[in-house]
């Protein structure tokens, strides 16, 4: 009983940490069009591990044992499916012959090849032909080894929806003929953009979503950082922009635990205990920002990282260099003219020119009224600014509106606290 339980938890742990590598290697053999088969064969290896370890002693290096088992399962699957399945076209002839099948499979399970396959998998999951609502769950499933329930928790949806999207995604890959490869030449840069977008999304999903479970959110951030690191370690991904994104993630993540108190209440930047910020992550953020500054490209990630660095470097909230931050927002606005950037910039202006200037700035955002009717953040910011400007009536109006638009309990709590402080 005890043995079965420890085998089960070890298998779960290894699935989360090793299945990404295994599915990638397997897909390298079978091709992206056979992703479902690749996942099935990896599953077989895990089933075998569980059966074996439930009854027998667990091997000294379980990950290596699993990798060998997966490799053998791959060879079985190739023999079994040779006549009905078309494998990866560049190695199909080698897999189809017994003269070369085993050595080819062995080669694809070598560390360098597996790392290469993981990159191929990232580019496949972040393929621009795939709709964004499929890219994220597919990435989490195939590269990160998240369970269906974990993905559902992270994306605030249910198991059926996740399964449906994964199914559709695999079908999409087949129908669109998406290839399992690392793009080259001009295509590489544009495809990397998409990869950055998905990783940024993944990180923000973890960092900003107030609704998902805290542990899953942290996992999402950690996973986005791990993928970004994986990308930076590969010849095609070690670019300044990758380091800029990595730097941005490190700076943000350093404040992850300080944003909530033990009662699950939001702690605003000005009230956070700066000594609790993760210094090691801040140092890594600085190192990556350094590496990002090679070359002459300044991307939105560079600027966002620099803004985050300003916050991390200020010893106290009152000592924040708001003018430097405002200048960075001006630069960001030139690259990314989104209303959200304008909103954030207005918050910074409030620190320099006072709340009224910031409110005027928000009123100049095109379509702010319609944005405010849909998104809680515009209302929350306006409410706070009116509060600072001692305009009680407007403050009440916007804070109430914000409360009605958020489903996050923590946000609601914070807003109610503000409301009750008003006369």
């Amino acid at each position, binding site marked *: 009983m005890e043995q079965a339980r420890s085998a089960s938890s070890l298998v779960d742990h290894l699935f989360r940490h090793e299945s990404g590598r295994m599915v990638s290697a397997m897909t390298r053999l079978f091709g992206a069009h056979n992703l479902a088969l690749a996942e099935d064969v990896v599953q077989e290896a895990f089933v075998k591990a569980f059966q074996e370890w439930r009854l027998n002693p667990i091997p000294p290096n379980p990950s290596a044992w699993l990798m060998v088992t997966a490799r053998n399962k791959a060879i079985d699957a190739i023999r079994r499916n040779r006549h009905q399945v078309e494998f990866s076209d560049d190695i*199909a002839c080698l897999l*189809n012959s*017994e*003269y*070369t099948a*085993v*050595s080819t499979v062995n080669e694809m399970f070598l560390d360098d090849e597996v790392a290469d396959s993981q990159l191929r998998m990232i580019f496949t999951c972040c393929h621009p032909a795939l709709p964004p609502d499929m890219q994220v769950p597919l990435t989490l499933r195939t590269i990160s080894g998240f369970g269906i329930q974990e993905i559902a928790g992270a994306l605030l949806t249910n198991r059926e929806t996740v399964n449906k999207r994964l199914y559709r995604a695999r079908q999409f890959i087949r129908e669109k003929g998406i290839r399992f490869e690392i793009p080259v030449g001009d295509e590489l840069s544009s495809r990397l953009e998409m990869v950055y977008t998905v990783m940024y999304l993944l990180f923000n999903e973890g960092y900003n979503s107030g609704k998902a479970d805290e542990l899953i959110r942290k996992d999402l951030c950690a996973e986005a950082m791990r993928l970004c690191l994986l990308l930076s370690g590969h010849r095609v991904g070690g670019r300044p922009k990758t380091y800029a994104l990595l730097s941005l993630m490190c700076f943000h993540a350093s404040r992850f635990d300080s944003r909530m108190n033990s009662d699950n209440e939001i702690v605003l930047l000005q009230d956070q205990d700066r000594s609790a910020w993760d210094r090691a992550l801040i140092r890594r953020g600085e190192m990556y920002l350094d590496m990002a500054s090679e070359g002459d490209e300044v991307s939105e990630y560079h600027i966002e990282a620099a803004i985050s660095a300003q916050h991390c470097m200020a010893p106290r909230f009152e000592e924040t260099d708001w003018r430097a931050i405002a200048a960075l927002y001006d630069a960001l606005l030139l690259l990314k003219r989104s209303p959200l950037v304008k909103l954030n910039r207005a918050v910074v202006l409030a620190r320099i020119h006072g709340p009224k200037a910031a409110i005027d700035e928000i009123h100049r955002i095109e379509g702010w009224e319609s944005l405010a009717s849909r998104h809680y953040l515009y209302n929350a910011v306006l409410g706070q600014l009116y509060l600072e400007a001692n305009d009680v009536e407007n403050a009440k109006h916007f804070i109430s509106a914000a409360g009605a638009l958020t489903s996050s309990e923590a946000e609601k709590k914070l807003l109610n606290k503000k409301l009750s402080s008003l006369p």
Partner: protein
Amino acid sequence: MKEFLLILRGGEEGMADAAESPEKFQQQMVKWKNWMEGLGKQGKLIAGHPLAKEGKVISGGKKVVTDGPFVEGKEMVGGYLMIRAEGVPDAVLIAKNCPIFEYDGIVEIREVQAGPV
């Protein structure tokens, strides 16, 4: 392009010897892989496998089944390849690169006959 059957005979002993040492076995695998990969990339490889030693032979009008094959060693068919080649000279060139010659093997080249038997 024409189709050819390459019948690989012999070399069993040499290959079995190589399989004794992991290092030599690895080298042997790489040689087969390089040769076939090259053919595959040119679209010249159709199929091919090594064959198990044991088999059956059916002969005569009475279809007598015996354990086979009859021949041993140098003459025994150990594997085959179906390839595409421009013509006989091209097929010969391809066959000359077969790793089996390192084990003293023999390759027989037979063109697929177009038209009725």
